[in-house]
């Protein structure tokens, strides 16, 4: 057998690189958080390269906003980052208010802050649930959603909807809090704290969870800034940047709260920052409830058609996922001329290639989970 001469040119090249496999994850994949899609080049269990694909939820919101009146745009903003609806409404309303130079009644500001912080908790609870699922644990999800459900029922009592509230108005809020709000929130807060604590206890320091997340998906602070990270993802890298503190909007300068930060910028740090943030949000809510004044909640604007003066404005706020920015251009008509949103998860997600390369296939899932993206906002 051995004496048969071989014509090597007819054969595959010597030392041919073993071909990598192309693995497609998404748009329908249980752990791509909606319809994100990534194409992984894997070698064995290692990821060699990643090609992210977004746009499977590109609904053209920015364009649609140009066709809606100012008060109708709020409904579209509700649906951008559909886990943090109040926060989205807030930043939009503030942008228009800034454009119009409108003062918001004190009480309305407090109501807004309380609801936004509740929504932040709800959003982080969803995150805890999904990271649990991604890492393979089901029960934390259930615990987390128990808390979410409680928050949502308070939302329902306040705004009439569980998710798409359309409650904030330009210059105030739609109507005052319901009469039993105090009682509701007094019931809610201890339960919520318990839910947060339980989902924290079962997950954060669990050994397996820790080994899965620690030192995975590490990104340095410089790179994170380069990619435009904001929110918990940036704070996980040890940079203390929070719009609520850095450029306080609304009435955030009146509260005493800390900005949790991580150290290494890995998945676990991001997780930890979020978990701590929930406690901080609870703190803010408690303070806000204490300080809340009475009075009107709708500004003098009333039900008039909103026609801001021509001009341009950029408003930013801290969403659960990071800094959201609204670049609003008005030409004096009743519809925005151009509305551009700076979605936090868009920037956070754009680093996915850098984060995933050279990690395990199994890590891709937790890394993606720890970025906590919401596709509605990424794709708009």
């Amino acid at each position: 057998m051995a004496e048969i001469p071989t014509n090597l040119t007819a054969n595959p090249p010597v030392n041919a690189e073993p071909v990598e496999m192309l693995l497609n994850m998404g748009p329908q994949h249980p752990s791509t958080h909606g319809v994100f899609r990534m194409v992984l080049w894997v070698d064995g269990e290692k990821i060699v390269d990643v090609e992210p694909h977004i746009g499977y939820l590109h609904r053209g919101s920015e364009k649609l906003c140009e066709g809606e009146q100012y008060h109708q745009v709020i409904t579209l903003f509700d649906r951008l980052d559909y886990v943090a609806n109040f926060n989205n409404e807030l930043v939009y309303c503030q942008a228009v208010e800034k454009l119009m130079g409108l003062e918001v009644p004190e009480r309305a500001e407090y109501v807004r802050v309380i609801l936004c912080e509740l929504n932040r908790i709800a959003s982080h609870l969803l995150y805890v649930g999904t990271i649990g699922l991604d890492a393979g644990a089901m029960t934390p999800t259930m615990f987390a959603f128990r808390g979410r459900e409680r928050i949502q029922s308070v939302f329902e009592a306040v705004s009439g909807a569980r998710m798409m509230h359309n409650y904030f108005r330009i210059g105030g809020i739609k109507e005052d809090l319901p009469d039993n709000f105090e009682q509701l929130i007094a019931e809610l807060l201890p339960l919520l704290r318990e839910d947060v604590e339980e989902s924290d206890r079962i997950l954060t320091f669990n050994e397996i969870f820790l080994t899965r997340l620690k030192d995975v998906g590490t990104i340095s602070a410089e790179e994170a800034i380069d990619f435009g990270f904001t929110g918990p993802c940036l704070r996980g890298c040890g940079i203390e940047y929070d719009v609520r503190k850095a450029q306080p909007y609304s009435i955030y300068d009146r509260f005493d709260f800390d900005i949790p930060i991580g150290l290494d910028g890995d998945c676990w740090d991001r997780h930890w920052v979020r978990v701590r943030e929930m406690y901080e949000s609870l703190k803010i809510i408690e303070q806000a409830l204490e300080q809340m004044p009475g009075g009107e909640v709708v500004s003098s604007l009333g039900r008039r058609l909103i026609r801001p003066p021509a001009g341009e404005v950029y408003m930013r706020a801290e969403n659960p996922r990071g800094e959201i920015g609204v670049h609003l251009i008005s030409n004096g008509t009743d519809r925005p001329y151009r509305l551009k949103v700076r979605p936090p998860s868009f920037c956070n997600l754009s680093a996915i290639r850098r984060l995933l390369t050279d990690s395990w296939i199994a890590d891709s899932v937790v890394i993606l989970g720890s970025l906590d993206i919401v596709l509605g906002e990424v794709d708009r």
Partner: protein
Amino acid sequence: MQGLAPLLAVGLVDVIWMVVSLLAMFTGLSIVVLSLVWLERKALGRLQLRLGPTRTGLFGLLQPVADAIKLILKEDIIPNSSDRAIFWVAPVIVALSAFMIWVTIPATEGLVLRNLELGLFYITAFAVIGILGLVLAGWGSANKYGVLGGLRSAAQLISYEIPVIMVVVAVGMLAKSLDLRVIVAAQEQIPYVALLPLGMVVFFIAGLAEVGRTPFDIYHAESEVVGGPFVEYSGAHWSVFFLAEYINTFAIAALVVLLFLGGWSWPFDAAALAWLPSLPDIAWVGGLLSVIWFLLKVYAVIFVVFWIRGTFPRLRIDQLMAFAWKAMVPLSFYAIVITGVYLFYDWPAWTLTVMSLTGLVVVGYIVYRKMMEPARRIAEIKARQAAQVAERRASRQAS
């Protein structure tokens, strides 16, 4: 009297009896599987503060039945890129191995199909065949997730097979037999869990991995490889895998009970039962009681399995393999060595317990340290956080 005769000794009537008993076994196992499915969903439900199935039959008891019927009624798709023969054969191999080991697993003294002298060896030998089925399933469906899952399953299952075999050997040494009935009988006095807790822990953990349950369910992890080797299977084929998985879970639980928890032996002897209103002194009553006792133990073990499933996230493949080869295999070696030494030098029983507990604690501590090692920075983070807070407070007070 050796020679041709014995092979002819199995007459037609015997064969028919055997077939009947095997069919009974099959039915029994199917019912067990249904009960397990129900139990799993209910237990997980309660664990997660919800109800689990309630609307199909009383307490949702018919839920697994409905699932089973529906699966049979489901279209069975064979993907056209798959290797048809392998795609067909794989579930059969898995189910075959799952079913065949039950030939020799006794439910009580008399309730066993055939008692093999080499029982434990037989079980290990046929359990290995099942691994093949999973690899072939992944391979045959020619799906990337499937291949990935198949490979993961192979790597995982073969790695955890070693500790299982070793611990089984250790138990065989203690009982001086590979016959499961003898092993149970040897535990009349003390169940082996008291002698060899190490063995029980290793066997249970490796057993979890063998049946691919959380935290070792990486080969069919939904969030990663969307079902792994089973991704392309539908309808009846898929339900065969499902069946096999649950039969295997049950088998592992049963083996834990048989090897370490004293099987069907009661913790108290017959005299303790004397207070009962004069039990009819018939053999089958005692048998029935011991079967019930056995089943109770098995279901308790299975509940622990579900409980673990409800608590833990899953590991990553490299961590899993490292755990198998760096913790489980050395531990199982250690189990054999200490058992051997204990038996050979006739040391008192408690020495074995102490030795095995020592091993367990040492390795457990090392693993704990290793796993918590990345958390070393957590304290640092907290300190940094506190410093920052203090600083901010100070600056605020200053201003």
